[in-house]
């Protein structure tokens, strides 16, 4: 087998040292009747070249990369600076375990500490954890956290929250006696304030909204937070397109108590949905209810600065069934990529990228709504995504665009039956003017 480092002689010496004749003797503790009496039915072994060919063939079966795509909806195609791949592929970052031995893990620990700081700066909150699995489970963890902080059993969840995030919240709370009530959106695509006022009472732990929301519309986080605080409920803001924080006011500065979501936009490839990078930040008084790992600063016996994983008593390996969450792993390597991404861009670079997204989306909105029959669905302010409504079913529009090598957007009717003939269109900095114009022409032909 590949990746075994023992010679025949090594094996012989080791068996002799143990005092047995063959490796079979090592498995005597396994009852004979359950042992596998045959070879596993698996392909291989494949040599490196064979494996490379095999995987390249599989990759070639994906037609998607050959299309011009305007998909977003929780996963975004952004520029990844070369240094991100270069630095994050170092073995010293890729191949260590969780930094439980701080003396030999200062690299990973300092990166986590810088990551936590960057998350705090972007969200405008006091503290952040070392990352979570991804955005949807982050939202679910935030719901559980709001329950622990308030002891209230009901949570209000905006219907304009990513539908998969809503589903995951439902899965997580189902066995815990908690209830999630959906808050509808209004005609401009934002949370319906009147409906919210009707649903909000003293049994509500928090309001969970996404901004920019699933339709790409920027919510009025300040008003939502004030509404929540009026009933001593928490304002939980989900950010699925983290790049928006480069341009929009920090949710924490607008009253959010917990900000969670997805940072895939910061240097992580689309990679068919994972691994991504969940994050969570909150006010410092909630620190003991924050799920996941946290790195902190301290000093060594000689007074030098160093970093350790801390506040471990919140976590599952110590608190067992009373832990704040059962999360064990974080997404350290993904958090590293985001940290390199953000530090490479810096303050002006991040702003510029976010601004170009908003500008290109605005241009695309102009171009596409100029096509006869195409209507903008929501009037609320967009960041880099918007919903269009077509004069015929999206499936037909989509099919026509695809014959021209374009994936024009994400159909919404499956998740939102009320949004007929509609699709979510995303435009990032990677789309050139020509790409957008090409979509406009193709759409015109598709609707003719």
């Amino acid at each position, binding site marked *: 087998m590949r990746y075994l480092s023992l010679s025949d002689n090594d094996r012989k010496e080791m068996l002799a040292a143990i005092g047995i004749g063959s490796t079979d003797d090592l498995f005597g503790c396994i009852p004979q009747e359950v042992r596998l009496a045959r070879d596993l039915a698996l392909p291989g072994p494949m040599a490196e070249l064979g494996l*490379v060919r095999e995987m390249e063939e599989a990759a070639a079966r994906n037609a998607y990369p050959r299309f011009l795509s305007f998909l977003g909806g929780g996963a975004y195609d952004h520029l990844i600076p070369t240094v991100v791949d270069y630095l994050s592929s170092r073995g010293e970052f890729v*191949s260590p375990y969780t930094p439980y031995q701080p003396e030999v893990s200062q690299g990973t620990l300092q990166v986590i500490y810088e990551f936590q700081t960057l998350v705090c700066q972007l969200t405008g909150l006091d503290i952040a954890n070392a990352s979570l699995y991804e955005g949807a489970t982050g939202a679910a963890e935030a719901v559980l956290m709001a329950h622990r902080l308030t002891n209230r059993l009901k949570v209000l969840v905006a219907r304009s929250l990513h539908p998969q995030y809503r589903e995951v919240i439902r899965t997580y709370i189902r066995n815990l006696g908690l209830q999630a009530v959906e808050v509808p959106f209004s005609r401009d695509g934002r949370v319906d304030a009147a409906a919210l006022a009707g649903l909000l009472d003293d049994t509500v732990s928090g309001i969970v909204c996404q901004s920019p929301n699933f339709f790409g519309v920027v919510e009025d986080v300040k008003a939502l937070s004030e509404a929540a605080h009026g009933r001593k409920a928490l304002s939980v803001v989900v950010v699925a397109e983290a790049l928006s924080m480069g341009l929009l006011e920090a949710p924490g500065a607008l009253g959010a108590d917990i900000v969670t979501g997805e940072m895939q936009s910061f240097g992580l490839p689309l990679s068919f949905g994972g691994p991504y990078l969940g994050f969570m930040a909150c006010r410092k008084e909630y620190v003991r209810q924050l799920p996941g790992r946290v790195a902190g600063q*301290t*000093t060594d016996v000689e007074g030098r600065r160093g970093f*350790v994983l801390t506040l471990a008593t919140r976590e599952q390996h110590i608190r067992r069934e009373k832990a704040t969450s*059962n999360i064990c792993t974080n997404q350290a390597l993904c958090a590293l990529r985001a940290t390199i991404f953000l530090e490479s861009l810096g303050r002006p670079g991040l702003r510029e990228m976010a601004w170009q997204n908003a500008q290109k989306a605005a241009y695309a909105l102009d171009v596409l709504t100029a096509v006869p029959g195409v209507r903008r669905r929501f009037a609320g302010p967009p960041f880099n995504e918007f919903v269009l409504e077509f004069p015929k079913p999206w499936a037909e529009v989509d099919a026509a665009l695809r014959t021209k090598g374009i994936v024009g957007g994400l159909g919404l009717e499956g998740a939102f039956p009320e949004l007929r003939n509609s699709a979510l269109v995303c435009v990032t900095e990677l789309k050139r003017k020509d790409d957008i114009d090409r979509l406009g022409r193709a759409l015109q032909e598709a609707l003719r």
Partner: protein
Amino acid sequence: MIKEIREPLVFEISAPGKKASLLPPLDVPETKGLLDGVALRRDIDGFPEVAEPEVVRHFTRLSQKNYCVDLGLYPLGSCTMKYNPKVNERLSALPGLAATHPEAPVDLVQGNLSLLKRLEGYLSEIAGMDAFTLQPAAGAHGELTGMMIIRAALEDRGDPRKYVLIPDSAHGTNPSSAHICGYTVKEIKSNEDGMIDIASLEKEMAADVAALMVTNPNTLGVFESDICRAAEIVHARGGLVYMDGANMNALTGIVRPGDMGVDVLHINLHKTFSTPHGGGGPGSGPVGVQKALAAYLPVPVIEEKGGRFSVAFDRPKTIGRVRSFYGNFSVIVRALCYILSLGPKGVREIAEYAVLNANYIRKSLEQDYHLKYTASSMHECVFSDKFQKEHGVTNLDIAKRLIDYGLHPPTMSFPLIVHGALMIEPTETESKRDLDLFIAAMKAIAREAKEEPETLKSAPHVTYVRRLDEVAAAKTPVLRWEKRG
């Protein structure tokens, strides 16, 4: 010496005006009054600004403060720190895979779906289960998913039941995962061999017990020889058996959990199937189930018909979604590559050599370190600091001294039933030379414990930082950098 460079935080070397040049100028007509009426941010207080050469130095220097598998033996018990093949990194990053959007129309990502379906099949074969989901993002997430499946199945029968039985040698995540599924945990004591005490199980396995959660081999590295009997007892009283597959590295190709009465299990791709740990993630924790439980698997479920793949969401009995999209795809691709590289014989050799290496270490050190449980070891062995305690030396001191010898410490926080544990798992990929280096270091430390215990108590001596004040870190947490003044 690089050790003497104290690498600052990026925020401390930041200065305005260092602009990266990454994007060409805006190529569309600028819209004036963009986002009018929306609260925009003026600044991001304290956000770094550094030049690219500085970024490269910063992270390269930081990387050198880490120990890693590429550098040497990493004997962390239950963590399975094996070599991560480099070709798998390259292949998981193939543009044809990495550039695919998770919402892409299924026609355009048939390659991805075929890879996912293949790994589901291979894992089913290796674990002896009927169906797999690759959704869970990590081992603990897999546990949660698996317990949700058990709960949903029992609810369907009319009663989700109240309790979950967990041996005292279990991973700490098990009780927490059971709890989040709404179950109360009851602990089962281990017997003197470190295995589940069948008599206690008989007694505790009542009609209100939903499941037994078992790790096999358990955290002592001991195979639960009575697993089949245990499963019979649980099944006879209407319960289900969950297996934490964190230690599958000892079993691949030798015995399959599904053949031992296990109903649900999770596997850690970042352990058994060699995907890199990345300093604490991303992982992947696929969950396998027997046929009767397949209907409860989370959505989406990938289906195949005549070589075409599709994605099913409409599954009435599903527990729902446990995360967004399709799981940690690029991790899944690495694990698939690993299995294809190894083939059936190689997958069996994982277990053979992992167990051989662990037993070689055990045999070589059993005169020097105390072995509380003497049942035969599988892929890891658990010593304790009992002999060294006589000289005032604890497992922590031994661990920290290993660092001075250029090695990573073993696991100490588990299992809870061994005080002062030193849980050692070498994995199958180590060379005899590296195993012998580790053994020699451990022997030297045992000697030092007697002769110069102070050297151990103040270890490590040669690292970038020495022992850190974890009490101060927890008492007055400083969790972020802040601008002074």
